[in-house]
């Protein structure tokens, strides 16, 4: 295998054991780079090789891997994203979270491709990474500070430093606590913040100017030219995201009867209500300015201000999960609660889903005022949002139950069917009854119900351009979801934004990645890499205890119809079983969702450790 360092990769992995304080520089195996690309793929492989799938997610044996991609450090559009892989304290399976912002790009400039964090520090610490030095620094004085305070303290007087940190929610091991960068950009899903809290890791501070070169400029440039042209051409990437942010999707999703309300009880919203929480309302009422992640031409960030307070968002998911999902159409209340979540370091999607579940439990009488400390936890009560966010982050009162996530909470109150989650991860703001691909995506996402790890299926259903597919074609769903999930795996592994998928698929990236590294990242190779990563994640989950039974949707979606295009729609048990079985087949997995021997041989060549523990 040729030496890869300098072209796309630095060829170095930083490994830190917080228990022993040991810091090690390791070489990035070129074969691993060729087989797993970077970002999510590289992080998953490094994680898989170093963790016991049966470990306690909040114990010292859990491992947190942060990886970048070979495109970070180039001028590829949106190439700024980092990827975290860990065992999730919310779901008990693989946690996989991706974020933009600027931290990952600066981490790459420290001269490392990935960071592996093991063990548990005896006291709160900050890890500082520079090209010439890596330090584990005691940080007791930072414990208890929120995200902006931590960020300001660590970057004060030190320009060029970028901070990745947790807030009180992570410290208190809220199971859906986030890791934040640039104060407002979240590695949100699956609870990475709780893992950091369990390791007494408050922040990772990075600074550096190490560069990588492009091996074949001409090849790289041909992909770049095409990507830039297509981004400037597609309506969503050239205009909608820039002008309305992700919340600009709200009315579009409502039009296709996919926008959930009141814990997925229906998808019906009045025009007036929607007008209060739409992207247009955000622009007209609270927008301060638009912003962008590092190297991103899409500029979908919304910097807003409400009641004298400034912050970012709310994004589409936050707006719906903390808004209509809770029966709330109050933009200011949602925005303020969102600011607070960012400060405290929490995933607003799981938080919204958990509050919506609590509200339904309350309305059904499973929860009462004695449980809530006198709070009227009813749908539509916007006044509870901020209060609950605070109680959750600090595990106060009923907040302690909500901090466990909706499934554990609903089980505690003996109504687990009211948790709208898959494998314990709260379902995002697209109703699966509105599209078979969306439903199957949630069912088979390796991390639980994630719209991104499950394949960004909504783009297939409504605004995929030429790639749009029928929403209710059973025959087409399985392969389409596999392919879309694979596209997502590649985007996560290339460190680029999901939204580029509105303009183009993998072709320009294949040329850019091949040009940057000199390795063969042709689209055929990329397809193989995506399949390899998907099966690796699956093997981990099976070894961690997941089964085919977990690849399903909550009962509500098969029993309670919604109206889609004038027709009653559910995802029946039979449909779910058929799609799941088709999907397994398309992936080369057996009837129980276990990668078959020939699949393992084709993707990995040799026996993969952990397959013997697949349930």
């Amino acid at each position: 295998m040729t030496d890869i360092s300098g072209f796309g990769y630095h060829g170095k992995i930083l490994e830190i054991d917080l228990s022993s304080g040991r810091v090690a520089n390791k070489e990035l195996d070129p074969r691993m780079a060729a087989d797993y690309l970077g970002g999510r793929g590289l992080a998953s492989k490094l994680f898989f090789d170093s963790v016991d799938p049966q470990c306690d997610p909040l114990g010292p044996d859990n491992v947190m891997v942060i990886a970048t991609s070979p495109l970070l450090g180039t001028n590829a559009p949106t190439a700024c994203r980092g990827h975290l892989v860990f065992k999730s304290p919310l779901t008990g399976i693989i946690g996989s979270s991706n974020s933009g912002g600027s931290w990952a790009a600066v981490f790459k400039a420290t001269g490392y491709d990935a960071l592996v964090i093991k063990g548990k520090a005896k006291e709160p610490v900050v890890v500082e990474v520079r090209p010439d030095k890596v330090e584990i620094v005691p940080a007791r004085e930072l414990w208890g500070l929120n995200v902006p305070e931590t960020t300001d303290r660590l970057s004060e007087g030190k320009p060029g430093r970028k901070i990745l940190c947790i807030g009180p929610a992570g410290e208190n091991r809220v199971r859906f606590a986030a890791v934040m960068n640039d104060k407002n950009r979240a590695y949100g899903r699956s609870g990475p913040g709780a893992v950091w809290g369990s390791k007494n890791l408050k922040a990772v501070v990075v600074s550096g100017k190490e560069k990588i070169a492009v091996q074949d400029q001409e090849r790289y440039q041909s992909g770049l030219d095409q990507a830039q042209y297509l981004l400037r051409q597609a309506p969503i990437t050239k205009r909608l995201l820039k002008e309305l942010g992700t919340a600009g999707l709200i009315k579009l999703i409502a039009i296709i009867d996919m926008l959930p309300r009141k814990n997925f009880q229906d998808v019906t919203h009045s025009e007036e209500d929607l007008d209060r929480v739409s992207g247009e309302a955000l622009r007209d009422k609270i927008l301060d300015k638009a912003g962008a992640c590092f190297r991103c031409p899409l500029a979908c960030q919304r910097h807003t201000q409400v009641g004298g307070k400034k912050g970012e968002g709310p994004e589409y998911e936050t707006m719906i999960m903390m808004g209509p999902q809770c029966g709330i159409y109050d933009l200011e209340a949602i925005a303020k609660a969102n600011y607070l979540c960012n400060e405290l370091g929490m995933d607003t999607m799981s938080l919204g889903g958990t509050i919506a579940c609590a509200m339904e439990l309350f309305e059904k009488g499973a929860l009462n005022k004695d449980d809530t400390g006198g709070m009227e936890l009813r749908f539509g009560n916007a006044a509870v949002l901020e209060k609950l966010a605070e109680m959750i982050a600090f595990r106060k009162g009923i907040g302690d139950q909500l901090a466990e996530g909706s499934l554990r909470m609903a089980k505690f109150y003996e109504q687990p069917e009211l948790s709208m989650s898959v494998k314990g991860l709260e379902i995002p703001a697209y109703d699966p009854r509105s599209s078979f691909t969306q439903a199957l995506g949630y069912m088979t996402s390796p991390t639980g119900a994630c719209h991104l790890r499950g394949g960004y299926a909504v783009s297939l259903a409504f605004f995929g351009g030429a790639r749009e597919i029928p929403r209710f074609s059973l025959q087409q769903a399985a392969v389409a979801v596999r392919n879309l999930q694979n596209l997502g795996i590649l985007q996560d592994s290339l460190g680029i934004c999901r939204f580029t998928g509105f303009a183009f698929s993998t072709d320009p990236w294949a040329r850019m990645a091949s040009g940057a590294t000199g390795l063969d990242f042709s689209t055929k190779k990329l397809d193989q890499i995506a399949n390899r990563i998907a099966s690796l994640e699956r093997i981990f989950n099976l070894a961690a205890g997941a089964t085919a039974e977990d690849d399903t949707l909550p009962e509500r979606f098969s029993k309670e119809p919604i109206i889609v295009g004038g027709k009653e729609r559910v995802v029946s048990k039979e449909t779910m079983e058929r799609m799941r079985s088709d999907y397994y087949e398309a992936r080369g997995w057996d009837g129980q969702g276990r990668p078959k021997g020939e699949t393992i041989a084709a993707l990995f060549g040799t026996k993969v450790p952990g397959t013997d523990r697949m349930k």
Partner: protein
Amino acid sequence: MSDKWKKSEELIRLYQAVGKAALTYDIEDSHSGNIATRLKDEKGQDRMAITATGSQKGDLEPDQICLPAIDRADFGYYKASSETDIHAKILSLPGVSASMHGHNKELTIATLDDLDKPAQPESFVPIDPLGWRYLKGEVPVDWFAVPSGSPEMTEKIPARLKDHPVTSIQGHGAFAKGRNIQEAFFLLCIANNSGYIVNLCRKLKVDIEKLRKLIQENPAEYFSHPLPDYQVEGDQAADFADDEELAKEFRKAGARIFESRLSPFYTGSISLRGVRTMFYAPKAAMPRELGGPLLELLLSDDGKDRELAIHRAIYAESDFQTIMHCYIPEAEALSHFIAPGERGLPERMVPVDAEGSFLYLVIPILPPKFELGELIRLLHDYKVVIVRGGGVWAVGAQSVSEALHHPSSVREICLYRIGAFERGLDLSKMEPKKAKKW
């Protein structure tokens, strides 16, 4: 009222559909051509159904389908086509149940000459795979002093059609025979497409006579896989009609292929990979009103159909979800085009238009006898590949529509290259520099 004027709804719909499709494909003008079939009346007597003289084929009314006796004059002849005699004789040929006459402009242009008349024109020899296969390598061309409905034509045309699927009347149009109307229409479309390709090649200064000679000497070397016999059975098959949305996607794509001339009537193929089976349209270019067979087939099968085998091989070696194969005439012509300054046949086509050059830096061109592995490799890298003598293959990761986008763009890209060359522009200057090394 006699039953002689009563036609089944099915017959009326079929005539209307073929009439519209013929107008769409521009092998008829407003009033030209005629369509005829042989049928038996309730008494078991041979009769024909033929379009009325002067009827608009794009808007046929039920009473513009006439039912004269096939072997004698009766009142049905008063309204019927002026070429009814010719059709009656064609329909009397063994195995023939339908005949059609069209104003195939491209074939007609390709067979014009400026010889002093009377003279016997040369036969038309197609240089494309569809024409070579389905026209059996030759379309006879005849000159007539009265080239419309004349007794000379009534003698000559059925005689020509004894041995040929299609025959042409110089400066007028063509007649085709078929086992059903669809086959006769199919042959007229193929003939026109072949004429179009020859006309394009002339514009591109391709040495057509040399090419024809080479093809006639060794046709197997100049065309891709052997094409199957035209099937008249099973056009109504609808194996996956229960998945309404998927069936609709196929029909939409099929209609677009036909209407946008991405492939002649009932040629090409579309497939979508399911999990254990594939969904397959073996006659991809399907007019809206006519539809075509939609089949569900096993993904792995050792059948002898080469076209299907290519679909299956692509799926076996990739994650693509959709495949489309079209016979784009402009692409076929350009695959023979040796650009000024170049020596050999092209191995790729570089778009010279703005959108094409961003969407496709280059489009590979494979020789007729390509390696399947090479086609699959190129489809991974380029998503669309032209095969000289073998059509255009395209793939999609998700949708039929995604695969359709490629041949549709390729046709446009081809038209711009041909147009630029016709205008005398320097193609090498127009091709993006970055594409030259790609």
